[in-house]
């Protein structure tokens, strides 16, 4: 196993998609085939990375051989490896799905040319964040991610893309101001060095607040969510899947890095409760609006607004301001689990919705009666993914909510337990509507043909969302590798 460490695994997780980005620009209409080579290679890299982290613990390399703080380090702990793996499964799955819309035209078109460089650059940016250790490099990667995401949203509508861009621009400036303050305080941007160097003084707390506010705008936490439903609801289905499954998680990932790795000491009861409350508002508000939507993709998009809320429960539940509560690690792991299972389930839902649109030409819930009989496999995928979003067993979503609920009860935070239960019930309501419509009536509706092979893609993603609930102990143990210090002592 030692040989694994000599491979440039971390560098390649970023370098390979970057190379693919450049290839996609020059290879013209063959670029949609690139993923057939890059996808398996990235999956292999992710497996090797998981093996390396699993057998050797957290990894760290200095890019260019320059040690921090002068250079930039890349690193992977359990958290990084799990997210890289999630990306390595979802990205190729979505790419295979997207080849029909963005690669089947004989002549080059706007979308068939631009989608693939955007896709690979998005992958590179995501991985750069997942294995990043440098706060300024996060900034560059975030902006790369924003450019690709805004361009994909623009396929579906200019106004939605502009609205997204306005939030993203403010977010990046706020984040950058925070980075400037931290560099001025500690003369380093490396996560590890910063955590040793900084005291929670005025500049550091302000920096943390600014960076978090900026990242919240990009994660679309209530009340900064207004851009998300039109953006995710109107983009082409593969783009929506990437945006909801992975892109919003990247900025959440950096928030976790900041508060649990860079400045755990700066967590205050005020901060954790504010983030938790905003999360609770997101869960209730997003779910209620999801119920009122008439279009399937908008239901799924508002569901993302709601599900993002749960992610922020890790702040009050793992409460870093009250050191190492016994249930803290459980709450934190539950939150991360939720991010992962939501990624798979949401990608499956958006792709299934995309197939329904291809079959019917629209996604009006009222007019899709009986679609389940015409597209049984697609609706099976939808139903399976819906279980995970509702948090019903057996699914990843259930495991995540179970972990968070136990911590909430153990910590006596009944409020969050109640919000989680309410959110689960509301999810049952908003997802029951499309399911109910799909099975209604007894006739088989006329549809445009949808190949079986493409229907297996959302099904596979939905199955993974279920399996990580059934075999939860593997990712659970894995996430404990390189657990933030502030949570340690909480693991049994």
């Amino acid at each position, binding site marked *: 196993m030692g040989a694994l460490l000599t491979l440039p695994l971390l560098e390649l997780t970023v370098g390979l998609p970057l190379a693919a980005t450049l290839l996609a620009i020059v290879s013209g209409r063959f670029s949609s085939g690139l993923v057939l080579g890059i996808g398996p290679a990235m999956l292999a890299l992710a497996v090797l990375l998981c093996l390396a982290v699993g057998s050797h613990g957290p990894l760290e390399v200095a890019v260019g051989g320059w040690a921090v703080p002068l250079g930039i380090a890349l690193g992977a702990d359990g958290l990084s490896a799990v997210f890289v793996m999630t990306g390595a499964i979802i990205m190729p799955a979505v790419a295979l799905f997207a080849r029909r819309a963005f690669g089947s035209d004989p002549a080059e078109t706007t979308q068939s040319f631009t989608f693939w460089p955007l896709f690979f650059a998005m992958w590179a940016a995501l991985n750069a964040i997942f294995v990043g250790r440098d706060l*300024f490099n996060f*900034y*560059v990667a975030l*902006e790369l991610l*924003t*450019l690709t995401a*805004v*361009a994909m949203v*623009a396929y579906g509508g*200019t*106004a939605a*893309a*502009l*609205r997204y*861009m*306005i939030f993203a*621009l*403010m977010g*990046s*400036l706020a984040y*950058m*101001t925070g*980075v*400037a303050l931290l*560099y*001025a305080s500690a*003369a380093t941007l490396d996560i590890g060095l910063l955590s040793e160097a900084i005291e929670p003084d005025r500049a550091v707390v302000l920096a943390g607040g600014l960076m978090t506010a900026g990242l919240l705008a990009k994660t679309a936490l209530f009340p900064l969510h207004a851009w998300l439903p039109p953006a995710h609801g109107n983009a082409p289905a593969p783009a929506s899947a990437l945006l909801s499954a992975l892109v919003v998680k990247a900025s959440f990932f950096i928030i976790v890095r900041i508060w649990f790795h860079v400045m755990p000491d700066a967590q205050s009861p005020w901060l954790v409760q504010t983030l938790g409350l905003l999360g609770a508002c997101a869960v209730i508000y997003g779910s209620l609006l999801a119920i009122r939507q008439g279009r399937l993709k908008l239901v799924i998009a508002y569901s993302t607004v709601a599900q993002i809320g749960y992610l922020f429960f890790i702040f009050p539940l793992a409460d870093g301001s009250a050191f190492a509560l016994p249930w803290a690690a459980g709450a934190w792991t539950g939150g991360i689990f939720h991010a992962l299972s939501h990624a798979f389930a949401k990608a499956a839902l958006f792709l299934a919705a995309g197939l329904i649109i291809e079959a019917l030409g629209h996604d009006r819930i009222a007019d899709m009666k009986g679609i389940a009989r015409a597209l049984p496999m697609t609706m099976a995928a939808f139903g399976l993914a819906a279980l995970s979003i509702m948090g019903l067993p057996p699914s990843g979503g259930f495991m995540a909510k179970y972990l968070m609920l136990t911590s909430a009860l153990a910590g006596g935070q009944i409020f969050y337990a109640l919000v989680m239960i309410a959110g689960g019930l509301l999810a049952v309501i908003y997802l029951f509507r499309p399911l109910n419509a799909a099975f209604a009536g007894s006739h088989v509706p006329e549809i445009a043909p949808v190949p079986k092979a493409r229907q297996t893609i959302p099904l596979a993603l939905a199955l993974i969302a279920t399996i990580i609930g059934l075999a939860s102990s593997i990712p659970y143990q894995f996430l404990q590798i390189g657990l933030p210090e502030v949570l340690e002592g909480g693991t049994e």
Partner: protein
Amino acid sequence: MMLSTATLYALCGAAMIGIGVYGFIVRAHLLRRVLAFNVIGSGVFLFLGALGYRAPQAGADPVPHALIITGIVVALSLTALAVALVLKHAEEAGRAVLPEEDREET
């Protein structure tokens, strides 16, 4: 008390950030928002650069300079996409203002 050069320019950067934030919120015209974004951006960079000049006898810190040059290029990239989006939106909607913010003209 005499302000050092570094502190003076850092405060100036903070002021520019505030001015830009005001413009970004108040001006609904999208091209003006892009402009305000750039005003804030250069304010942030001035803030970072000035704080890297707190020990003039040791010389200016080159690391923030490199970060700022990178930041300027990133800001230009975002500006270019934003401008292209604004133009496309204006051609579709007739005005470079988002529909929900289109109130009476001044």
